[in-house]
């Protein structure tokens, strides 16, 4: 047994935090080592955005990424996943674009129940604190998003139910 391993400090608190702040709000935070100017650039230039928004470990890949980052401009992300028959689309409109400090956009793929996302960039010394705030139109909209199991547009509950129905059909066929 390596006793020294036990005495090592436990890892710092998680770098990315997510909190349900209220019935209608989710808040994600993370600090980045770099000036707000560069962090903001990585959120607003499509060629940079594409490099981090679809994490490789999730097997998701961009099919297309149209971003027009200015107040009133629109965006449309299309992703593919090997297990998904259909590509996933996310789209909306930028309501506010304040260089290096604030971005606000709508999420319209879910229709009326979509959240409005506000991202703020706060420079603190050599670091930039990013706070992403999703405000849903109602408690029900956020509850439904959670209940659907989806963390990014794929309704996993329905996929599971489909599986269940298929296997149910198969077992009836066998008996």
């Amino acid at each position: 047994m390596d006793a020294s391993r036990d005495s090592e400090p436990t890892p710092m608190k998680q770098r990315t935090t997510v909190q349900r702040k209220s019935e209608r709000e989710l808040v994600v935070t993370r600090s980045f080592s770099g000036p707000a100017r560069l962090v903001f650039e990585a959120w607003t230039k499509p060629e940079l955005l594409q490099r981090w928004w679809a994490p490789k470990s999730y097997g998701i890949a961009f099919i297309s990424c149209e971003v027009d980052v200015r107040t009133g401009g629109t965006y449309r992300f299309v992703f593919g996943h090997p297990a998904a028959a259909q590509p996933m689309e996310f789209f909306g409109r930028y309501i506010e674009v304040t260089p290096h400090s604030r971005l606000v956009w709508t999420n319209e793929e879910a229709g009326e129940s979509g959240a409005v996302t506000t991202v703020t960039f706060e420079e603190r010394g050599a670091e930039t604190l990013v706070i992403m705030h999703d405000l849903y139109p109602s408690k029900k909209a956020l509850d439904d998003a959670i209940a659907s199991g989806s963390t990014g547009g794929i309704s996993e509950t329905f996929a599971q139910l489909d599986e269940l129905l298929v296997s149910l059909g198969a077992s009836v066929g066998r008996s």
Partner: protein
Amino acid sequence: MVQYSQTRFDAAFAALADATRRGVLQQLGRADASITELAAKFHMTLTGIKKHVGVLEQAGLVTTQKVGRVRTCRLGPRRLEEEAAWIEKYRQLWDARFDALDQVVEELKRKEKLDGRKQRQ
């Protein structure tokens, strides 16, 4: 996790083996309903329908919420445990994104330093 899913899966199968319970799911798929409404719809006693709803609830297929004297049933898994699991999944997604974003920012910083040096030369 696998164990948990298997148990849940078995419970879901057992819950779906009954025609009334499949009917209740179908009904709730159209709209949320109270126990009283379901009892009337399926010509059952309150106790009888409660038993069926209980089985569906155990299987995580239905949730119920009591407001005043009315217990409302709706499709969906148990809330709190699901919410915590969902929030952790959501956190992991953003954490993975932000790890990649870290790299992009690092690269921009290096590039800026390099460009700055070039300009000074």
